[in-house]
């Protein structure tokens, strides 16, 4: 919980301008982070403002959390202190877009939806099909390392981000990487900021490589009577010469959330579904349809069918928005992000499903065949308080994923604030590499100005 702080507003007004310092109750409430509210919101116009604000905060021992679209502030452990919300919405310009070079430099407040529209004019895109796409900003997407189903073919932010500019917790303006597509000049400090939840630095510019929008696209659904059959099919796909853009595996509970209309009518409620897309020349898409169908048949698929463009649009949107859908379904959901090699995913999900059943929770999972899943434990009945069983199951999930043969990593991305009694609840038990992360934190933010307590190991 945030302690009541005496924030000297006048200095902030001097730095960012009077109109940029906000204390409106609704605006403050929108920037809640796990139950903590800031005393004030400041809207800097540029990196120089941010540097001054952070130096001021360090001198006054105030804690600062950067915010964008305020869609993922619930991720992470509760901050130990929180005085100033640094709202980056004014920094929403595309600073450099060279479509001929397929490179891009943007400020953190640019909304992904707007950016994708700009890129589409040049028949290009960024492979960031991320949740909360109507409000999410680049800064937030990068800071939360939002997972995208397109990761299967294009990699994650770390794979197509070329460099960043940022302001460290000490108020020092710095950068790493660059604007060119290949670069090993200096340490890749920007990679540390991806997924750092604003605990190391405030991102002020992100450079990306962009990608051409494929000529044609096709989306297909295959359904299977068991998790094993679905994963076997996906393994056959990954060991074939085919090059799908997306391979998402949905458990029976998930199908009800992402399919509607005719598709749900064709899918048996008890089956596992695999949603695949292929892109490129029309001949490439046709071949995927043909051969994915054969592979699905060989894996005893119950159904295999292509989606119409309208159906595909809807299914892609539902897959992209999956964490949001789960939260809408149950306020007291516990949603993990789990990464493991594909070979252990089926047994791991099986164990987690048993855990859910033992604790009388519903279980839904959706993820990439390459091994990054969202799994959610949902109370079977709506109540004002999260059930005790949710806390118990959370500890069990970390224990299960922590078994050496699982090669799995997990974090609790979303859950009710009441349950987050310590950093371990969100990040799992301490690991030897947490000490290295503490040292990294100290290099960027020695006075613990940025989101103290929000990160792994209580960082």
């Amino acid at each position, binding site marked *: 919980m945030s302690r009541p702080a005496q924030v000297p507003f006048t200095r902030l007004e001097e730095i960012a301008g009077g109109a940029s310092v906000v204390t409106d109750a609704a605006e403050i409430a929108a920037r809640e982070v796990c139950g903590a509210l800031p005393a004030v919101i400041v809207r800097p116009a540029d990196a120089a403002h941010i540097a001054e604000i952070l130096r001021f905060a360090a001198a006054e021992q105030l804690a600062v959390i950067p915010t964008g679209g305020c869609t993922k502030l619930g991720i992470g452990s509760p901050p130990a202190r929180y005085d100033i919300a640094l709202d980056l919405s004014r920094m929403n310009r595309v600073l450099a877009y060279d479509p001929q*070079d397929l490179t891009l430099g943007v400020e953190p407040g640019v909304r992904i939806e707007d950016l994708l529209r700009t890129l589409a004019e040049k028949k290009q895109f960024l492979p960031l099909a991320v949740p909360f796409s109507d409000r999410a900003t680049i800064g937030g997407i990068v800071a939360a390392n939002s997972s995208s189903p397109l990761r299967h073919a294009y990699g994650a932010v770390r794979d197509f981000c070329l460099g960043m500019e940022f302001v460290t917790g000490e108020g020092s303006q710095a950068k790493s990487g660059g604007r060119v597509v290949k*670069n090993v000049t200096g*340490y890749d400090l920007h990679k540390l900021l991806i997924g750092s939840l604003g605990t190391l630095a405030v991102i002020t510019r992100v450079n990306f490589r962009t990608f051409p929008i494929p000529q044609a696209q096709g989306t297909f659904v295959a359904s299977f009577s068991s998790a094993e059959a679905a994963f076997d099919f996906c393994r056959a796909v990954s*060991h074939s*010469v085919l090059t799908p853009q997306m391979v998402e595996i949905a458990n029976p509970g998930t199908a009800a959330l992402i399919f509607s209309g005719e598709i749900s009518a064709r899918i048996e409620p008890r089956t596992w579904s695999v949603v695949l897309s292929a892109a490129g020349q029309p*001949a490439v898409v046709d071949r995927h349809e043909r051969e994915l169908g054969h592979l699905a048949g060989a894996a005893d698929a119950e159904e295999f069918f292509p989606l119409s463009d309208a159906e595909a649009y809807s299914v892609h949107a539902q897959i992209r928005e999956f964490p949001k859908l789960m939260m809408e379904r149950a306020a007291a959901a516990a949603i993990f992000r789990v*990464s493991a090699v594909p070979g252990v995913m089926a047994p791991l999900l099986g164990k987690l499903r048993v855990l859910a059943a033992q604790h009388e929770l519903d279980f839904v999972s959706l993820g990439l065949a390459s091994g990054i899943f969202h799994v959610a434990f949902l109370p079977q009945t709506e109540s004002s308080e999260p059930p005790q069983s949710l806390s118990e199951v959370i500890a069990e999930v970390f224990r299960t994923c922590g078994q050496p043969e699982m090669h799995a990593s997990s974090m609790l991305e979303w859950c009710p604030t009441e349950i987050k009694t310590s950093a371990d609840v969100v990040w799992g038990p301490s690991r030897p590499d947490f000490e290295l*992360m503490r040292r990294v934190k100290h290099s960027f933010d020695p006075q613990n100005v940025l989101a103290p307590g929000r*990160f792994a190991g209580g960082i």
Partner: protein
Amino acid sequence: MQPQLIRELEALLGPQAVLSAPEDLMLYEYDGSVELGSPRCIVFPTSARDVAGIVRLANRYETPIVGRGAGTGLSGGAIARNGGIVIAFSRMNRILEIDAANLRAVVQPGVVNLDLSRAVEHLGLYFAPDPSSQKSCTIGGNVSENSGGPHTLAYGVTANHVTGLELVLPGGGIVRIGGKSVETSGYDLRGLLVGSEGTLALVTEITVRLMRKPEAVKTLLAVYDTLDDTTESVVEITVRAITPAACEMLDGFTLRAVEDYVHAGFPKDCAAVLLIEVEGLKEAVEAQAAEITEVCRLHRAREVRAARNDQERNLLWRGRKEAFGAMGRISPMYYVQDGVIPRTRLPETLRRIEEISRKYDLQIGNIFHAGDGNLHPLILFDERDRAQFARVVAAGGEIMRHCVEVGGALTGEHGIGMEKNELMPLIFTPDDIALMERVRAAFNPLGSLNPGKVLPMGKACGEIRVPPMPASTTIPT
């Protein structure tokens, strides 16, 4: 004190694992760059525990430590600049696990890059990063330098293919970061460690992604009468968003040396060639190859031909990958640059390099990864001519400054090392560098690990280092 250190190292590792005779040290005083530095001794650990023991001993004797793979690096990363102990990983060369089902391999750092691909070839898999030195360079070295190669245009550099590392920290602790899973919660320490040039920790085990071999590969050779037509073709391939797996350029000067050596059928009378490879499903390959051919013809390629079989394809690639070696036929030494530029700036950059070549009266060969704007101008020289060597250094600096001016970078894949660390201020502000120094100190507080690399030492800011005169006439390849 130092003889005592060697005795203690021998007690720790056995006498066969420690070299300290002057004639042995000489073999480890250079790498693939033009740099030199003599270590006090070389040690050959066989396990992470050995490495941790060496590190603890070195700390007790306040002696620097430098990790070394095959010594093929091109920026002096494996050179004992301040003396001390070189830890050679050549006896940690086992492939520990091939997990084909999950497309992973776990290897020791001394495994040779190509050996891993060969070990998984029968499974239809390979390890994607393919530096030209892949027949000899080690995966540990690739991790240190975040190595690239021709095919990184499509598949990314080493950092995109490493999922886990085991580290020995400069204090002697052993820590694992990441593992087989695609991601690990917390800060992306893998992303920081890969490419940190051995200045943060010693890597003792690496988990890498393996990739499935594509169904079809087509290798095209486009032949040009002018450099401008060649570079304009590359720009248009990029602009049209065609994504070949590799797009390499060799200029006529380089080609003639290569052809005399490799006999790959490169035309010796042209201004330049592009070696372009497309991979994937056969439908995609045919369509892309057709479009690339059209672009090349549009830009007046006098000939565009496809390799007819694997033998022809391998010969073309041998020409590319052994081009540095072929330079030895026409020059006693060369100095290779590694600047990167935005791809649309290729034509003007090649013209600039020609001007610089004339200005300094030096022969510069161009052979590089055109598709991602990663240049490798080779400045030829004779080390006996000291005046010429000074011009070589000045010309190299001017090429790098041009790369920076057009929005590029100092190095695309060879690393900063001890060659370009004093040039870092061309790209980075004192604040940028101060933060990098703090991150280095967070891992390597005493500066004992690979000192004098990556970050400027503050003596000659913004100057390219004038390397010591090479002692022998050996041509590094």
